[in-house]
């Protein structure tokens, strides 16, 4: 018993070491005084200075955020409405729509990317509209975000008791108001999960953006790609460190809130 516990502890540590060691090394060398990534030559913040003065990176970061915000909002609106509509659809049509909804999640990103690229190129060639750039980027991101929104809202709708919506209408509430007052609060957690997933997926995406953005709009992952493909610069290390810290803070904050919430509900359940 004792030995197996020790063994599983060692195994866990080894796996997490494997996952974190490269990131730790990356961050440590972002403070290195020289370009070397294997020899420590003293502490310096010069790569951070370089990073925050790099117009290309800052510009791309801004494009990434803009795309992610717009895509997350549009995908959440369309996706939530779709989930509500799917719920009241006849069975056959619903299962067809759900299958179509799964396509972007099941398909490899590269296929989703090139298929939309073919469409955009054809539309631009035929009409001169939708020149590959910011707009096509947003459309592509909305497309791969919608499925995740639908899949996070749909379970909440299924859990809900449909009679309360009907009851509200029976009591004289107009449908739209009844929806906002009765259904919305029930599915809100699903919508929030959806919006957050859409935002992070969009921010993180490289492959689909790479094929659909043309040469006029560059997101941050695309700039990172071209930087790593050329020759390595410690600026990328500094960027990794900054992103890691931001993600760490966000994740700890979200988790702390969730754990506190779960403790509270546990407690109230016990009190009752």
């Amino acid at each position, binding site marked *: 018993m004792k030995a197996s516990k020790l063994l*599983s502890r060692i*195994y*866990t540590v080894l*796996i997490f070491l*494997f*996952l*974190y060691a*490269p*990131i730790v*090394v*990356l961050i440590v060398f972002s403070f290195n005084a020289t370009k070397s*990534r*294997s020899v420590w030559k003293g502490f310096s913040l010069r790569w951070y200075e370089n990073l925050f003065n790099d117009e290309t990176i800052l510009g791309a970061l801004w494009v990434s955020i803009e795309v992610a915000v717009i895509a997350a909002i549009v995908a959440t609106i*369309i996706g939530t*409405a*779709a989930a*509500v*509509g*799917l*719920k*009241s*659809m006849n069975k056959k049509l619903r299962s067809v*729509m759900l299958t*179509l909804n799964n*396509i972007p999640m*099941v*398909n*490899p990103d*590269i*296929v989703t990317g*090139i*298929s939309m690229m*073919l*469409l955009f190129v*054809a539309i631009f060639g035929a009409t001169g509209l939708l020149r590959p750039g910011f707009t096509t980027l947003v*459309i592509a991101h*909305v*497309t791969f975000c919608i499925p995740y929104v*639908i899949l*996070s809202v749909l379970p909440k709708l299924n859990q809900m008791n*449909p009679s309360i919506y*009907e009851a509200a209408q029976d009591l004289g509430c107009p449908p739209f108001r009844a929806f906002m007052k009765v259904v919305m609060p029930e599915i809100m957690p699903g919508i929030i*999960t959806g919006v957050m997933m859409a935002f992070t997926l969009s921010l*993180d995406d*490289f492959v689909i953006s790479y*094929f659909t953005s043309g040469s006029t709009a560059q997101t*941050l*992952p695309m700039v*990172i*790609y071209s930087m*790593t*493909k050329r020759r*390595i610069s410690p600026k*990328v290390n500094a960027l*990794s460190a900054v*992103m890691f810290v931001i993600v760490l803070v*966000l*994740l700890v904050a979200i*988790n702390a809130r969730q*754990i506190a919430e779960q403790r509270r509900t546990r407690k109230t359940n016990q009190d009752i």
Partner: protein
Amino acid sequence: MKKDSWVASPFMVWVVIFTVIPLGMVCWYAFTDASGAFTFDNILKIGTYWTYLKDSLIMGAVATFFCLLLGYPLAYIMSRASWAAQQTMMMLLMLPQWMNFLLRTYAWMTLLENNGLINHLLGQLGIGPFHMINTKGAIILGMVYNFLPYMILPIYSVMEKIHSSLFEAANDLGADKLATLRRVVFPLSLPGVITGITMVFVPSVSTFVISKLLGGGNNMLIGDVIERLFVGAAPNYNVGAALSLVLMVLILISMAVMKKFDDGEETGGLMM
């Protein structure tokens, strides 16, 4: 709520224009030549690219195998840990995933280089240097590193639901630890394993980024070939579309085969 299904119409229009039509275009390009006449030539070109496709399938399978080998024990350990430990490990698994995968891959680039940290440290011990970057091994390592959490999380989420009374029952009925693992835990965890395998295999087979960054130019995968045919110096959408179609069909077939192992249990442990 029967009459509410119309609110899904923006979604239906969106799916048709940006998912169904683009896939239709992939098929169209795959079966026509530059002048638009019907042809099988593009599909038959697969013979020329067979080595890349074969390499992708083998390397994807090897990476998936290692993810399962490394991930399964950890998922089991996690599912048996205390609640607080489970939450912490979950967060530690998600954290690197939130950093862009280009940065995670870049981290290995700097470690595996000929004058990178690993060779530097080995050199101080008087060993090496080893040639690690730009090899097939480096690509597989990159795949395992990037996608390991995709294997662990679905398996964990299925295992975590196995009630502890099942372990007690197995124990009472005289099963030792190994027998319990083989006859109780493993069959119940199968849906999670299937989900995990698909979630690792699909992005591994279709990647072009990991192979480019860690494999140099010499170890091309099918993803690299497709990328080159669409955005390279001499684009050929027809052949590119045909290869994408073949890739898509192969992935669908392997997923259907995997589903056969799963006893029809729906959405085993879809992450999140």
